[in-house]
């Protein structure tokens, strides 16, 4: 039987496939149910972010960063603001730093809810998705109250934040933290240790440590492969060095180290750490002070030079590389975004060979891509 030659069949998965989390086309060459090769085709959501940047001044770029990773807009705003602040040497008021931490960690939880919710959905578990989305709505209500928008906030500006908050809002955030804790335990019971889910996700899409580093894995994906690295901890920016939190890493407890279950579990555990950070930030924040104090009125003082700044978004390391010509030019000469999801997606070509077609969907769900950010 082994001598019988079979033809490979080419199948297009996407671009409008619900489990590709956006518009991504995968060209699969399959031998029966087994994938022989997988070639991703990107660019369906390419909007030329980097070209647009070259004709906009720095404050006007912030709303564009929202639209890259639309599930974690706060973290994107912040990544860009960090780069410009480093360039201009702006000291952000402490109140703004606390506000940034609170909204970004809230947004991180919302983004991880999408990640594990839809991951369960891809595999066939519907209930945890709806349960988690209840919580996501609560976060959106909070962020809407703070910024005025549900998903694309334009909230973290260069040098500060866009709107002030009230002490009632802080109480509501506190209330959310309390309501979230039992829900995440419930998701553990419903999904994480569910026998069907574990057998579907464990031992699938294994990415060993060296491969993870080689293919640019960052964030929860990297930590799922057992590497303890978090920019908030290892290269603390803003005020993250004031907070006490753990960096959860994969351990291969249900299967092999670096499998889909490990990556999934890292996200679940990270949301708990985010709650810890928010609670500490709520205790530390003081509502006195002006939030616009350090917001630059214009960019005439922009120095000549370049910076590369990386920060931790829910998808991993977002790097912003800005080249500036100095004060006379109010726009960046070049602005490049190192997108974590783009880098993580590149591993698909490498690990797709020999897996089942249905496992491709599991792998895609577990590396948590957002096509808006992959294509930019």
């Amino acid at each position: 039987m082994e001598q019988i030659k079979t033809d490979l069949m080419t199948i297009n998965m996407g671009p409008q496939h619900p489990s590709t989390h956006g518009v991504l086309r995968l060209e699969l060459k399959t031998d029966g149910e087994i994938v022989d090769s997988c070639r991703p085709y990107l660019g369906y959501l390419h909007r030329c972010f980097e070209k647009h940047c070259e004709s906009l001044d720095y404050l006007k770029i912030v709303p564009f960063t929202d639209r890259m990773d639309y599930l974690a807009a706060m973290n994107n705003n912040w990544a860009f603001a960090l780069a410009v602040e480093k360039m201009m040497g702006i000291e952000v008021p402490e109140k703004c730093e606390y506000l940034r931490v609170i909204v970004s960690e809230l947004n991180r939880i919302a983004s991880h809810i999408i990640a594990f919710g839809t991951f369960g959905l891809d595999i066939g578990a519907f209930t945890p998705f709806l349960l988690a989305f209840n919580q996501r709505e609560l976060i959106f209500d909070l962020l809407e109250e703070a910024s005025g928008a549900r998903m694309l906030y334009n909230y973290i500006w260069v040098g500060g934040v866009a709107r002030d908050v009230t002490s009632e809002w802080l109480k509501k955030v506190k209330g959310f933290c309390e309501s979230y804790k039992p829900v995440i335990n419930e998701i553990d019971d419903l999904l994480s240790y569910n026998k069907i889910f574990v057998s579907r996700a464990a031992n699938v899409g294994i990415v060993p440590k060296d491969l993870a580093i080689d293919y640019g894995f960052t964030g929860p994906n990297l930590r799922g492969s057992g590497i303890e690295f978090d920019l908030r901890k290892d290269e603390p920016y803003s005020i993250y060095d004031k907070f006490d939190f753990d960096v959860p890493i994969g351990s291969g407890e249900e299967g092999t180290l670096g499998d889909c279950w490990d990556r999934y579990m890292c996200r679940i555990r990270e949301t708990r750490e985010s709650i810890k950070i928010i609670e500490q930030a709520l205790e530390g924040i003081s509502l006195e002070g002006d939030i616009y104090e350090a917001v630059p009125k214009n960019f005439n003082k922009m120095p000549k030079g370049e910076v590369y700044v990386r920060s931790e978004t829910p998808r991993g390391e977002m790097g912003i590389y800005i080249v500036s010509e100095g004060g006379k030019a109010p726009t960046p000469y070049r602005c490049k975004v190192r997108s974590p999801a783009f880098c993580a997606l590149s591993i698909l070509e490498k690990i797709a060979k020999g897996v089942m077609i249905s496992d491709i969907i599991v792998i895609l769900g577990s590396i948590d891509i957002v096509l808006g950010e992959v294509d930019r």
Partner: protein
Amino acid sequence: MTPEEIFNKLKDKFGESKILSVHNNESAEVDICDPFINIEPLAMTEVAKFLKNDSELAFDQCCCISGVDLGDDLQAVYHLYSFNQKHKICLKATTNRENPAIGTTALTWGISGWLERETYDMFGIIFKNHPDHRRILLEEDWEGYPLRKDYEFPRYWRGMEVTPEEDYGTD
């Protein structure tokens, strides 16, 4: 290791013709920049291999490759990080505009494959010996390289209007 130490180590290995210079804020005559090392573009492949495999350097992750249009020249900027040694460095390879070619690093770091394809897509820099040298974000038959400063937006593409008439030729 500090950028100077990395530079000296590379220079001892490859010589002055391939490892050109090291810069920081003062020597690069700008107000702000991270320290970087200029590399001869066609030597990138072997330099990258050494940077990864040497136990003291151990740059195991290529964070980012960015193209920059310098006017007369095109440049690729590599940001590298070592999880092992916890240090980082920036490399720059500058190539001419007419015949831009840089040695690939895709055989050294897996992620470079895609990052270099993106740089090719946007700037038209050819990465020599790249195993899969195609466009990545734009269509295969797209003309021109959008992030070059002299790029002109097309009026039509495959019969579709991609730039409205009133905007055409103004940018």
